[in-house]
């Protein structure tokens, strides 16, 4: 019984870490633009598919994934420069709508350039499974949890300690005031897209050994990450972690103890209930709107 619970715990935390990374991408862009960026899921797919392509060419997993992440970050920056930056009067709704178009274009481009077939590559470690106290743990799951933790820690330090991170936060808090003290507000939007693409690409690169990657999975990743962000509290960095893990664990335990037929239904019913009780999410703070 305990091994079963531990098994589910490992599965839930593994999936939850991926959701947390994607949710973080949503939150960072939300902070800087006030909009939801629905291209987030496509970057996950790009991360996985480009890694696979580069792995086939170099047979070095670390190198392939690192390069892929860099390429996706560039794509994130390019997306912002080409699509968001030229907007004459950017507002929340407009950016959200544009991001949906961006998602569709990215998906088609990935399909045309990288193909329609699902791709994959072996895990980061030679040994694929460890049995710890009767629980089968995939080494890749440990990598996922570890790398997610490292990324979140790095993000925390970036936002709290570095000048650039502080500038980003300042611009998110008040654009005009930040501009007055010399923050280049427009660059911060680009930077937030770069970070979001980084988080997405990392998620894609580390999950692909377990689940494969195909060009049409982006919408699912985006949807799950969006839900995790809502659950944790939009715009909150710890919220992304809490929301992601909560969603992953809900799915794992719900499908085991109730029914796998209703896996998503269980997770989303709980999501709705939580949002009824706390509309701003688990860790979100209700915004005070000045009238």
């Amino acid at each position, binding site marked *: 019984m305990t091994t*079963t619970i531990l*098994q*589910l715990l*490992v*599965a839930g935390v*593994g*999936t939850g870490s*991926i959701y947390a990374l994607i949710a973080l991408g949503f939150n960072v862009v939300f902070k800087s633009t006030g909009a939801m960026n629905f291209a987030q899921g496509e970057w996950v797919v790009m991360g996985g598919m480009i890694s696979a392509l580069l792995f086939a060419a170099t047979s070095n997993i670390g190198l392939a994934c690192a390069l892929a992440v860099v390429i996706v970050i560039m794509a994130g920056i390019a997306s912002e420069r080409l699509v968001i930056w030229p907007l004459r009067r950017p507002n929340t709704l407009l950016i959200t709508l544009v991001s949906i178009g961006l998602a569709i274009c990215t998906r088609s481009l990935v*399909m045309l350039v990288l193909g*329609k*077939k*699902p*791709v*994959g590559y*072996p895990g980061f470690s030679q040994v*694929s*499974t460890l049995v710890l106290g009767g629980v*089968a743990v*995939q080494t890749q799951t440990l990598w996922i949890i570890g790398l997610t933790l490292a990324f979140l820690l790095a993000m925390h330090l970036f936002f709290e300690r570095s000048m650039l991170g502080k500038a980003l936060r300042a611009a998110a808090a008040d654009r005009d005031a930040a501009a007055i003290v010399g923050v280049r507000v427009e660059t911060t939007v680009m930077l937030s897209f770069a970070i979001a693409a980084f988080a997405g690409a990392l998620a894609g690169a580390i*999950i692909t050994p*377990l*689940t*494969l990657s*195909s060009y*049409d*999975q982006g919408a*699912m990743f985006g949807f799950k990450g969006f839900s995790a962000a809502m659950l944790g509290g939009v715009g909150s960095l710890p919220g992304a972690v809490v929301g992601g893990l909560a969603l992953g664990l809900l*799915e*794992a*335990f719900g*499908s*085991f103890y109730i029914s*796998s*037929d209703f*896996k*998503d239904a269980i997770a989303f019913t709980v999501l709705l209930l939580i949002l009824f009780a706390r509309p701003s999410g688990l860790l979100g703070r209700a915004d005070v709107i000045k009238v």
Partner: protein
Amino acid sequence: MNLGRRNFLQFMGGTALAATGIQPGWAADEPLRVGSILSVTGPAAFLGEDMKAGLQLAVDEINAAGGIGGRKIAWTFYDAESQTQKAISATRRLISQDKVELILSGGNMSGIALAMAPMAESASIPFISSEGALAIVTPVAERKWVFKSTVDDEDVLERIADYFAKKNIKKVALIADTSGFGQGAVTQMKKVGPRRNLDVAYESFDPADTDMMPQLTRIRDSGAEAIICWTVTPAGVVFLKQAQQLGLDSRTLVHSYGFVSSHYMTLAGDAAKSVLLASLKFPVGDQLPDKDPLKAGILRLFRSYQERFNRAASLYAAESYDAAMLAKEALSKVGGDVSKLPQGMEQVKNFAGMSGVFSFSPERHSGLSKKDIVLINWRDGRFNLADYE
């Protein structure tokens, strides 16, 4: 001839009228208008491209041999993009604008073919589907014009039950995806299971799922001796990998005919060693015993497909190829009259195609049977025959 504008128009109108006026139902030298809808983009694209190639090859072979009853085939093709809505408007276009006399293949997704079947039926246009679901051709009273060239899930499950009986396996689990394909198998298994005294546990997963540990843990704890997975999506690879990680590969793992793809097997890597696939004979055509009625035909298609497209023929290409060849066979039984094609199809008996030996009847518009299914495995980078009968 010096014609004014007005006269010219009258002249043209008259010619057009004359051209339509003297036509009988069809002329021997007029091409046979055939339409096809497949999904060569979207999630189901990997099936659609092979199916399109299969049809293309069949149409070219038929035309090179002089056509059907002296009429060459004029082929119209539309991409359904894996979307039922797109397929419906394309079907409407085939029927009303292109005025096709026969439809082959329905979008390579059961959901699409299910939407197309009633449209073909109400327009009285014969439709030979290369998609799986039994509901495409049932109830027969409402599907007089619709036939399918694929195997029924019930027969596949019966064949798997035969194998379990041989191995004395009584307790099994069926883990199916939540699509029409997966849930169709669940419905059939609820009939086949009790009939064959199998104790079946049911689990399901979303085609986009990335983690099946909870379901597999539950199956492990249930003590099922064999696990059948039913999906056409990459999630089936996740199933194989995670089953191996939980040590379930020591039990009997079975995938359905929807997963017979060398690409998926390569992706599963080491985890593909333990799986059996309930498949049609096509992928192991060269390993069939010489007495098998399909062997010669399959080997011929292997060669011509390789020559034409420079890649190995897949099962899906064989299914659409069969749809075209069945139409030809049926028309030859009714003197090439397309309006009598259903009667012709119902007379087709023991016709050796590529995916099996077809027999249709007025009661059954699905031509294959349990005998056309074999169990295959994946060794040395290819499919191999594991259990012939």
